[in-house]
Structures are given as structure tokens and as C-alpha cells.
């Protein structure tokens, strides 16, 4: 008994000291807006390298490393080399918050990239805002940047993808939509966005089903979509969940057309969904159909170069849309730091004023109101035919 009291006393003391140390550490950071002006430029990346977001995070790490290497080979940014510090958030929100805290206070980086998915990105946002750290997220939800000062992002907003879906619905005369969405941050706000944007066309969401990003059986959700009997159904998730849901959709023989989000823009989706993917419709970034773009498309050269270099660097592997988000984030950050130096306020101001930056995911034009910089022109409607993403009629 006595021993136990002593141990618990020790434990309390330890916990307290850790707490105190944590506080003092966070206080000591951010003494100034600017980082070091000599030595390498430090770039932190928080990615979903393991866990539910792994099929995104792993390719993003590769493309980020590729972009950093390309810049360093060309002499770095503003004459200084880039140093990349990568953290794995294990696809969790608390992991992401911990990682950005470490990058801010311990590594004292000049800019933070990440995270791969919406949930972890939302967890990082308040830390970036309060420590005045420029951050470029690679995730989709508009909520990441709505009203933000210090946070930007490269993935196309969910809102622009929804806009493309609604356009298609109007074109084809669909009035009712069933939705099966990711229960994590990526799927938040999708139903509201559809209801909002669909109102003018008399389009409504009549059924909403949810699934965990690591779910394995989708029979229940798909049975309910089948009973709802909507004109079209939308599956909003990332692989492997999106692929398993797609399989269940076909297995249950649901007749209505099925749409997927831009969360499926990688080979892992096509591999795991197999034949069940044929015929689905999805608004995707142009990287998934780069070979089918006309030569005069402004992104054609950037896309072709990126795909060639990525394949050369990683043994012929085809880069995904997610790889593009990482690549764009590094190049936006490098452009800002190259022009504005490492003063954080100056970097932030520069990013907010970026105009016509031709990236892999689209042509970025940021503004104080829009920290994503991409409109619905950044995605094109595609379908899957013979296990391959195929551009639909209207090219561009």
C-alpha cells in the first residue's frame, strides 16, 4: 500500500513536470514572424502515411520528396536548400495535432504541408492559426479554409466537385439523389452542399448513409440506397472503403447510375474495385486523364512533365491525384518563399495573392476569400471504362 502511494506520487510528479515542460515549450516558440535567414529552408509535412488514409499519404510523400529534390537540384529556393521533415499522423486527428505541434515548436519549420485528409487537417488548423504558421492542406473539404488566415489548400474543394455533379444531374434530368458518405471529415458537409447547390434545379438528397473510413461491409448502406430508389446515387469516400462500397453497389444490382467523388483518383481504387467500377461517373482532376487532354490545354505540359518525372523516380508507378496535391503544395510554398523569404507573414500574404499558378491539380488563383484557388474548371467529368478513367464528351 505504502509502495503504491509512493509510486502514484512519483507518477503525478512526472505528469506535472511533463505538463509544465509542454507549456514552457509552447511559450518559447514563435518569438518572431520570421525564421532563420541562413541555412536551409525548413518545410514540415504531416501526412496520413499509415492507417485509413495510407493510399493517399504514401503517394503524397513520394511526390513531395520528388518536388523537393527537383527544387534542390535547381539550386533550392532563393539560393537556400529545402529541408523536408515528414511526420506520420497515422490517419488520426490527435496524431496530426501532435505532429504539427512538434514541427512548430521543436523543428521550428518555415511552412507546414498537410494533412492528407480533412479530419486531420481540421485538427491542425487551429494550431497553425494560433502559432501564425503558414499551412497548405492536401485535403478536400471547404471547411479547412473557410475564414482562415493562415491555412491554404491544394485539393479541389468538395464544393466544386459537387457543382460538377449537380451540373450533370441537371443535364440528365435527375431529381433525387441518394448519398453514402464517409463518416469522417471528408464526408462532412457533402449532403448540405448538394442540397444547397441542387435547390435551383429542384434536386434533393433523399437518403443519407454513412460509413467509417475503415469499414469492410457495405451491404446495409447499399440496401438502404436501393430501397430509396433515387434517380442517381453518390458514393463519397476514399479507397479502400469507396471501392468496397462500389462493389456492394454492383452486387446488389442497384439500377440507378452511381457517382463517386474525387477521393477515388488513384490506381488503388481501380485495382480494388475491379470490374465493378466500370460505368461509374466521377468528377476528377485532370491528372487521371492527362493522356487524353488536347495539346492546347494549359495544364498539359505541367501534367506530362510531372507524370514522366514521377514514373522515372518511382519505377514506373503512375502518380495519383493525391500525389498531385502534394506536388502542388511544395511548389506553391517554394514560390512564396522564393519571392517573399521566410518571414511567415510575408509568405502568408504572398500565398493569398497567388495568380495563375499552373499546377497539377488545376490553375490556382487565390484571394482573401478563397484560400483554395481552384474553381469547378479544375475537375472534369470522367467515367471508368475497361478499368481506366476516361474523359467524358466535353473535353477541356
Amino acid at each position: 500500500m505504502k509502495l503504491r502511494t509512493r509510486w502514484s506520487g512519483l507518477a503525478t510528479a512526472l505528469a506535472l513536470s511533463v505538463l509544465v515542460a509542454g507549456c514552457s515549450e509552447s511559450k518559447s516558440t514563435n518569438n518572431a514572424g520570421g525564421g532563420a535567414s541562413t541555412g536551409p529552408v525548413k518545410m514540415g509535412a504531416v501526412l496520413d502515411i499509415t492507417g485509413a488514409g495510407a493510399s493517399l499519404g504514401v503517394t503524397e510523400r513520394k511526390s513531395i520528396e520528388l518536388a523537393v529534390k527537383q527544387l534542390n537540384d535547381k539550386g533550392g529556393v532563393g539560393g537556400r536548400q529545402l529541408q523536408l521533415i515528414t511526420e506520420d499522423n497515422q490517419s488520426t486527428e490527435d496524431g496530426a495535432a501532435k505532429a504539427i505541434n512538434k514541427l512548430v515548436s521543436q523543428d521550428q519549420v518555415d511552412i507546414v504541408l498537410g494533412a492528407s485528409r480533412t479530419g486531420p487537417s481540421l485538427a491542425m488548423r487551429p494550431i497553425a492559426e494560433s502559432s501564425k504558421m503558414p499551412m497548405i492542406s492536401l485535403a478536400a473539404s471547404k471547411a479547412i479554409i473557410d475564414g482562415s488566415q493562415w491555412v491554404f489548400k491544394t485539393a479541389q474543394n468538395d464544393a466544386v466537385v459537387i457543382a460538377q455533379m449537380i451540373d450533370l444531374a441537371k443535364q440528365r434530368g435527375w431529381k433525387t439523389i441518394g448519398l453514402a458518405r464517409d463518416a469522417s471529415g471528408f464526408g462532412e458537409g457533402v449532403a448540405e452542399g448538394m442540397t444547397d447547390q441542387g435547390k435551383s434545379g429542384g434536386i434533393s438528397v433523399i437518403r443519407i448513409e454513412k460509413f467509417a473510413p475503415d469499414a469492410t461491409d457495405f451491404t446495409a448502406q447499399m440496401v438502404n440506397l436501393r430501397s430509396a430508389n433515387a434517380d442517381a446515387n453518390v458514393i463519397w469516400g476514399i479507397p479502400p472503403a469507396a471501392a468496397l462500397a462500389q462493389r456492394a453497389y454492383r452486387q446488389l444490382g442497384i439500377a440507378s447510375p452511381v457517382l463517386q467523388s474525387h477521393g477515388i483518383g488513384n490506381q488503388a481504387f481501380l485495382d480494388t474495385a475491379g470490374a465493378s467500377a466500370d460505368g461509374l461517373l466521377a468528377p476528377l482532376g485532370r491528372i487521371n486523364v492527362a493522356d487524353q487532354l488536347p495539346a492546347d490545354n494549359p495544364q498539359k505540359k505541367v501534367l506530362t512533365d510531372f507524370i514522366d518525372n514521377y514514373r522515372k523516380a518511382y519505377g514506373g508507378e503512375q502518380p495519383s491525384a493525391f500525389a498531385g496535391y502534394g506536388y502542388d503544395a511544395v511548389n506553391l510554398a517554394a514560390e512564396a518563399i522564393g519571392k517573399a523569404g521566410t518571414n511567415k507573414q510575408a509568405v502568408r500574404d504572398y500565398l493569398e495573392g497567388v495568380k495563375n499558378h499552373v499546377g497539377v491539380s488545376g490553375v490556382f488563383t487565390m484571394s482573401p476569400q478563397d484560400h483554395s484557388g481552384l474553381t469547378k474548371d479544375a475537375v472534369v467529368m470522367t467515367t471508368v471504362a475497361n478499368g481506366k478513367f476516361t474523359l467524358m464528351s466535353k473535353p477541356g
Partner: protein
Amino acid sequence: MTDFLQLVVAGLSQGAVYALVAIGFVAIFTVGGVINLAQGEFVALGGLVAIWAVGSGLPMLAAAAVAVVIVVCVAVGVERLVVRPVRSMTTLTSIILTLGVSTALKAAMLLIWGPDSKGLAPITGGQYTVAGVTVRGQELWILAIVTVVSVAVYWFYDRTVTGKALRACAEQPVAARLVGISPGAASMLSFTLAGLLGALAGVLASPLYFTSWDSGLVLGLKGFVAATLGGLVSVPGAIFGGLLLGVLENLLAGYGDSGLRDAVAFVVLIVVLIVRPGGVFGRHAEARV
């Protein structure tokens, strides 16, 4: 009605996988009071080894055999190197030890096979529709194989001398030693059985539910809950628990909120622990205290 049956069919197939995991928990717990939290990792390992073997050109059956052999070796290794050396094993100690094993196995699988989810090709593809209810070929295989395995395991414990010896160790450890049953051999046999069942679950589940380095955690937890329905000591209880859990999950997801699906197992666990800590089917509860 069609929807109800569809949900039940999908639930049974998922529940059958939980049942295999649950029998693994029971096999090990009955012999030495060890709760093996790495049971779910056996499943993931079985699936990943089979996927890797098929990928390197082996036919499906051979790949399954390779998976079983490797997982059994790992299970026996865990018993020899981690469980056996502990002098006085308590259930709590075993939880801490096997949690460590589980973490180490996960890390090893991540290093070897990377973070992506993969799936095996189904044993027979295609699907059958009866009265509006769709059944996938693989689901029939899962149900058939789990039935055969369940009967075999039950027969093993009830009818063979070795199986009876294992049960003797569980019920009267001292008396079992007196009549010459080696607790060491019994413990090793139980881990062999658990490894075999885990690998089988992994190979069967992978075509439908995919496998990744971390898919064992959830399967392990669900299997554990299914096993507690039988008080951790009853094989039929574990099987029934697994099936019940699978069906309940799907019904709640279908008729309630699909986001609550994973909560079912834990609500069931809490209710069982409060109302019937010896398990809904546990006969030995009083004797074990």
C-alpha cells in the same frame, strides 16, 4: 423482407469470420487463462501472406497452405518465446504481453507489405440471387468452411483424447498434471489451433473485406467480444456469439444509423459484462472463480 434477409446474409458471412477469431481466443484462454490480443494480427498475417504468395505465382490452395504454415509458426513462436518463459502467468500479464506482440506484428507487416489494403481473388467469383437476395460465391464458401471447421473443433474437444486433455487442463490444471498431461504441450497445441484458425479466417475474409497491416485490430476486438458471449470458455458460445454480432451490426446499420455500426460490439460487451460476466452461454462461470 428482402432487405431484412439481405442484411442477415451479409451479417452471417461477416459474423462467421468473427466466429473463427472467437474460437481462437477460446482455444488459448481455456488452457492457460491467457487472453491473446494478437489473435486479430494472426488473421491479418494470414491474409497478407496468402496475397503475397498468390502474387508471387502460387495457386490459391498452395497460397492458403503457406499462409497457414507461416501463421502457425508465428503463433507457436509467440507461445515459446513470450508466453512460456513467464513463471506465474495471470490473465492481466498475458494481456500486456500479447498487446506487445500485436504491436510488433503490426509493425513487421507494415514494413514487409506496406500500408495499402489488398484483397485476394474469391475462391469462386460470381453471385447468386434468390428471391431478390444476393449471395456472393465467397460468402457461401465462408459459411461452408466455417461450419466444417466448427464441427471439427467441437469434435476435437469432445471426442479425441488430445482434445479432452486440453479441456482437462482448463478445468482441473492440477489433476491434469497428476494424470500426466503436460501443460506446456497443451499450451503449445492451443496456440497452434489459434494460429490455424486465424490464418483460415484471414484467407477466407480477404476477398470480401480486404486485408491491410492494421485490419487485425478491429477483427480481434470483435472476435474477443464474440468470445466473451461464451464466457471465453465455450466454443459453441463463441461461434454463436460471432454470428449474432455480425447480424446485429448489419441490422443496426440497416435500420438504425449506419454510422453506429462499430458501436454494436462494444455495447454488447458492456451489457454482457454487467449482466452475465460469465458469458451468456458460460457453464463454468462459478467453477472458475
